[in-house]
């Protein structure tokens, strides 16, 4: 307990979508992250992974559950205490074209972080600090006076990272930071994130749908399906011995940029689409698409349990 930097317990986030229908975007998830560790959170769109990230940093108010970051329970903090706590935890967003205010210069976008927390005494100091931060991510001082639309996607994403770093956080939630970028640029951003992690001892929650990048980047990976965590394990172990049939299918769907199938498993093409999280299937949420589903799966919801040392999966047959 004590060495866990981030501790999420029984987190739920429900949205009322009208007509008394409840969308259970995040439905009772628990995990922990050690200091300096990266936890990958993967799943398809609509599985609740982004909502989970946003609820942890309280962009959405959680419906239930607790989130502890650096020893502080954040879900019940008052406004002013939460503001102070936000210096500890930050977020990097998915869409580099939407995450920077188009009417502000880069100086003001990054400078805002300093303004909010009173981290720069004078205008000159603010400017100097922003330029320092830009250099940290491989941009330079001349970029400070430019507007977001003048930059390429990769450059913008680095500006987004700079903004998050400006308050010197210890925990960063990366919400699909590379999925909107070109392949040749993705590696730049991943390398940058990993460099920064080493340099500043950062703890990451890395939310993504690209399992190959997550596997490479993370120490441990949690797989989400319809608001639930279905499997969580060390990334090598998850890749080598997937326990949940959904994880197996996800892994086999990764496009491999090679012609001969070395080391690739038989591709399992899942049938059908993700069921609606407003009206999820009874029992195991995955049973409607699972190639191995049985009668039992429709009746009993499987618990997340240890199936191998340090490897948890929610499947009756794991």
């Amino acid at each position, binding site marked *: 307990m004590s060495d866990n930097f981030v501790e999420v317990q029984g987190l739920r986030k429900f949205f009322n979508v009208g007509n008394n229908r409840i969308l259970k975007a995040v439905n009772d998830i628990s995990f922990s992250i050690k200091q300096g560790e990266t936890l990958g959170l993967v799943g398809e769109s609509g599985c609740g992974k982004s909502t989970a990230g946003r609820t942890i940093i309280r962009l959405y108010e959680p419906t239930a559950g607790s989130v502890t970051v650096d020893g502080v329970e954040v879900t019940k903090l008052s406004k002013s205490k939460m503001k102070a706590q*936000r210096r500890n935890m930050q977020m990097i967003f998915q869409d580099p074209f939407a995450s920077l205010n188009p*009417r502000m210069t880069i100086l003001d976008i990054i400078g*805002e972080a300093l303004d*909010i927390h009173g981290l720069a005494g004078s205008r000159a100091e603010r400017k100097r600090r922003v330029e320092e931060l830009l250099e940290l991510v491989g941009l330079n001082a001349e970029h400070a006076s430019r*507007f977001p639309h003048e930059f390429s996607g990769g450059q913008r994403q680095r500006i987004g990272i700079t903004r998050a770093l400006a308050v010197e956080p210890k925990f960063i939630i990366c919400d699909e930071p590379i999925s909107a970028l070109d392949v040749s640029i993705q590696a730049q951003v991943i390398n940058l994130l990993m460099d920064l992690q080493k340099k500043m001892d950062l703890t990451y929650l890395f939310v993504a749908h690209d399992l190959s990048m997550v596997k490479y980047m993370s120490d441990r990976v949690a797989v989400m399906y319809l608001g639930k965590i279905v499997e969580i394990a060390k990334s090598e172990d998850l890749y080598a011995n997937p326990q949940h049939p959904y994880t197996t299918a996800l892994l086999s769907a990764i496009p491999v940029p090679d012609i001969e199938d070395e080391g690739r498993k038989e591709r399992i093409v899942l049938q059908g689409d993700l069921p609606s999280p407003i009206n999820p299937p009874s029992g195991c949420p995955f049973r409607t698409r699972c190639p191995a589903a049985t009668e039992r799966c429709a009746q009993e919801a499987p618990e997340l349990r240890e199936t191998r040392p340090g490897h948890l999966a929610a499947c009756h047959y794991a």
Partner: protein
Amino acid sequence: MSQEMNVNVTPGAGSNPFEKIGRDQNGGERIVRKSLTAWQNIRRNLYENKLSMVGLYFIIAIALMAIFAPWVTGLITGYNYFANELANANQPPSWAHWFGTDDLGRDMWVRTWKGAQISLFVGIAAALIDLVIGIVYGGIMGYFGGKVDETMNRIAEILYAIPYLLVVILLMVVMPQSLTTIIVAMSITGWINMAWIVRGEIMRLKNQEYALASKALGAGSMRIIFRHLIPNAMGPILVTLTLTIPGAMFTEAFLSFLGMGVKSPVASWGTMIDNGRQAMTTYPWRIMFPALFLAVSMFALNVFGDGLRDAFDPKMKK
């Protein structure tokens, strides 16, 4: 620095063109395109729209005449808008009185431009009051949503439902017949439209990632609304503003026509039209000039407002 590196690359005499130099350490990040802010882009789009530029020039010309014409004419000829000169009543346009004179022998040229002053002032003042109330009220409605939005929206709807003339007539009873009363009367319900426009824009923008990023940094609601959301909603707001001015001018004319306008000897285009209407067939110049200028300036403002909308959102054009 990077400039110098680039120069080095040109093959000098004797240097081997096939010598390896590696990648340009900085060149890949350089921005070559001329910096063009969003506002510059809008201005450029506006310049290309000839009709709306004509509208703008008309508005500027009328405004300049309204400010200077009564004063300059007074210096040269000694005419003013209030002194009666019954011997000269109802003169047709001539070299001495370009627009003729009215039933009390006052110079119509001076009175027309004096009227422009009042009409434009009423239009602009009413529009600005709408702007301020509308932005604050609509901004709060849109950003907080839920119960706040519902309550505030109900209040606005109730105000909107009260017959407008009733409000004006009631106000006239409690307040003296003056310019202030007219502006107040128009503002009581005038801002609602602006508030709804702002509300819609804010609702659209508040889940943009840049607003979320600012919230994650610890920014307060007011900062997010006024630093991030309103500046990005400026397009529709400005368009509504320019289209409110002619509306207010028309309402003022309409109220004057009903005898609720400014008191003689002060003139607005509305009171002058009302006054001229009584002698429309015998002395047509008394209604012609104020009516012509009212029509022209309303047309010019509408054309300019449309051009502005296209400039903000060029996609709307086709």
